């Protein structure tokens, strides 16, 4: 059963095209992301799903088309404005966590808050709370290299959530984990994201990961096929 969304989309991609060299990655991709929803972008390798995610996040500029966030054209903004947008409104989770190896896990989670100007003590307090919610408080004072893969990925999720972003972009967040750890990470991730009300754009090619989403969009040959409504 599907529920129609009447509210305006939070994030939209309109007719995006992007080519790397002679290889087309996006070819008229159009997509809407609504506040609070979990949207899975699925598709085979090389279909353009990661490129679409990077365009939506304001990381890679499309050759043509428009990306809007809350009605504002993302690529009409200056580089500094886009950076500020990513710092304050967006969160990111990558396949390998990409935590800063020299910082402790707690400091890694606190990093986006510190970048946003939050004082160290407050940033650490909020980060510690989140690590507890994600059940990795025991590695708070350890460096990423000393934590397991699953723990590291949960720390990365905490880092993405800590600024209470409106949208979280997750690119194959469980791609480097075994199924058991992947399941646990996804449960904790989606639960925490729903609690904060953040929308999640989830790139995956695994059906069991996509099962955590409200809506699935399939990317193939640079085009998006997405249902209008959430399931």
């Amino acid at each position, binding site marked *: 059963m599907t529920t129609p969304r009447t509210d305006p989309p939070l994030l939209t991609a309109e007719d995006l095209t992007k080519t*790397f060299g002679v290889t087309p990655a996006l070819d008229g991709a159009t997509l809407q992301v609504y506040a609070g929803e979990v949207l899975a972008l699925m598709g085979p390798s090389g279909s353009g799903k*990661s*490129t679409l995610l*990077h365009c939506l*996040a*304001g*990381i*890679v500029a499309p050759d043509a088309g428009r990306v809007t966030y809350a009605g504002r054209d993302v690529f009409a903004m200056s580089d*500094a404005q886009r*950076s*500020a*947008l*990513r*710092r*304050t409104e*967006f*969160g*990111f989770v*990558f*396949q390998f966590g*990409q935590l*800063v*190896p*020299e*910082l*402790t896990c707690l*400091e890694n989670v606190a*990093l*986006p808050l*510190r*970048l*946003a100007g939050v004082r*160290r003590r407050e940033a650490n307090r909020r980060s510690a709370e989140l690590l507890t919610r994600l059940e990795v408080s025991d590695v708070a004072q350890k*460096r990423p*290299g000393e934590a397991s893969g699953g723990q590291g990925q949960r720390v990365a999720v905490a*880092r*993405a959530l800590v600024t209470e972003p409106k949208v979280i972009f997750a690119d194959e967040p469980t791609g480097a984990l075994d199924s058991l750890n992947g399941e646990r990470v996804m449960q904790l991730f989606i639960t925490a994201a729903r609690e904060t009300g953040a929308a999640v754009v989830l790139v995956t090619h695994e059906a069991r990961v996509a099962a955590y989403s409200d809506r699935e969009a399939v990317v193939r040959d640079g085009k998006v096929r997405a249902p209008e409504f959430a399931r």
Partner: protein
Amino acid sequence: MSAPGRRGPTACFGDLLLGIRLGVAGGRSGWFRLVMTAVGVGLGVAMLLTATALPTVGLARADRSEARSPGPGVEAPGPDTLLYAKADTNWRELPVGGLLLRPEGGQAPVPPGVERNPAPGEMVVSPALAELLAAPDARLLAERLDARVVGTIAPEGLSGPRDLFYYLGVDSLEAGSFGVSRTDTFGGGGRGDGATLPAVFLVLAILGLVVLLLPVMIFVTTAVRFGSESRDRQLAAIRLVGADTTTTRRIAAGETLVGTLLGMVVGGLLFLAAGRMVGDLVPVRFSFFPADLRPVPALVALVVLVVPTAAVLVTLSALRGVMIEPLGVVRRGRQRRRRLGWRLVPPVLGVLLLAPLVGGLTDGTGTLVEVQITAGVTFLLLGMVLLLPWLVQSVVHRLGGGGVAWQLAVRRLQLDSDTAVRAVSGIAVSVAGIIAVQGVLGAGQAAMTDRHGDSTRFQASVSVYTEPVDWSAERITTTLADTPGVDTVNAVARPFGVSGSSTVDVLIADCDGLRFYAPLPTCTDGDTFVADGRERPEIAPGASIVLDEDDPGTRWTVPNGIRPVEQYDRLVVADLLVTPGALAVPTPEPSTFLVRLDATDPDAIEQVRTAAYRIDPLAFVSDFDEQVTSGLLGTFEQALQVGAVALLLLIGASMLVNVLEQLRERRRLLAVLSAFGTRRRTLSGSVLYQVGIPVLLGLVLAVVTGGGLGALLLAMVQEPIRFNWAAIAGVTGAAAVVVLVVTAASLPLLWRLTRAEGLRTE
């Protein structure tokens, strides 16, 4: 590759060979690493090889000087004798050597490199001097050496290609005159430059050598770790296929050896190529012929042995700080806590070696003491290299707080400060050494200043001891006073009096002239002063002194009321300082002419030199300012500064290579940081702190060590301890500039890597 647990020389050799193969077949990035290492090591080795040739260069210069020095004196004139006199002069800060020649017969010896002795009015000059005389801005020198040039001196008669030397034929030399000697040969008269080396120069020479060579060696050990992170990743891949830790270390050693050996070849070629040019690039006093640049075989053997050994040891030591595991994962283990105890041994040893020499180092000190000083200075500076990693680790582990940039930098240093410290220790040694050198140099300069008197009153003096024909003291005074650039001239008589059985140094000048030699509280014509500490019955009031032994009419009685005066520090130019009014006898003929120069005329001293040369080529001109700021000390300072700048550039380059390598290694992470909105200035600031913190700590340690070493060395040569704060500020400032330049130079790459598009590299 050896199987895990396999041991023995064969396995060891096999692993080394595999490392060597990996080193030369590592693909494009492998080749890049190899080239970087080879070039870095090559530059260092070229400098080390140049240093190994310094003894032969010095000896060759000395031999060449000896070959052109007139031989032992001969009493009687003959067909094979000639009269000669040294007539050295200066052109600005350059020394110009000269010999006046007057053959006494047809078989008179001819100097090396010269076809025949120049006839009166003829001159044979070195090629460098010929070039200088033809230069438009050396007009005053050309006016001074205005004889007809009839030839140039061949290389066998020169100490170096830039040697400024001339032979002037004259007919005015008379046997027995002041400064004139007779000989029947050239060469064998002792090495020209072989005068006893003052203790302060010995200390400076040793210090200079250590200060320049130690950082070169440090640089070499830094260069062998260029690209270390990607090498470590490569080793991790080898671990995956079954290599154990010992094997990986051997492979790493093999790979290091390739780069180092290639670097030694590059260094050898650079040495051969640059050797042709170096002789022309060094200061004039040290210029040498390429053929004289012959490394001492024993020292070359030492370089060939020490460089690869040090390279392998550094690699193995660096590998102790990382845990290389299979699956391509290189996890850095917790940094080992560095211990202070053993690191204090070398500096303490250095102090123990130097301390016994405090107050006891005299001019012309022997070889054993030279070795002791060299070892002491080396241990002390080496100790600093060992202390720096401990200091950086101890300090960064206590650092906290600050913004994100600071936090990223501090945490990075907490995790791994080795790479940064390796490069910084080179800067630290350089800075510490230069601070110590500047201290000793300052003392040397001050000592020389003091030996002249108050150079604010008179800036030069002309001494004419030969009583040249037609030149009375009055005419000399007038001629000098009329010279462009001269304000006033003060004639000073300096007779050697006799009182009873002892000689008495007397200095006769008006109050203005006397004040150059001693700070007189009051002085009027008629006053007489006695040098403080020199009072004795022979010069007490009432004592009778004959001012000129040949003229009994110059007997003078020391008046009553003479006052003791302390002459300028270290200078006891005379027992008695007498104003003309105090003499009841005719004033002896002045021989020294104090000259006050027009400070606005930069060529005033050259005008004086030219005027003095025309009065008498043997007249001796002292430029008090020149002796303070240039001369041998100036040349040394200049050489040291050039060396230090070259070193700083070299070390800066290695720091830059390290920073760029780290950035490339972290490009994915940087892109991620950028993706979630990290500002560029945060990341730039992080790089600045990461480079700057170790440098700052290195500089603090360097200033303390350099200051301490300088104080120790000054105490050794019995000079008052003083610091050249301007020099300290200059050299630390230069190091700070290196930090800024390295940071600035890394920014383009940093910005390129922090483009969020970098995420696509996965």
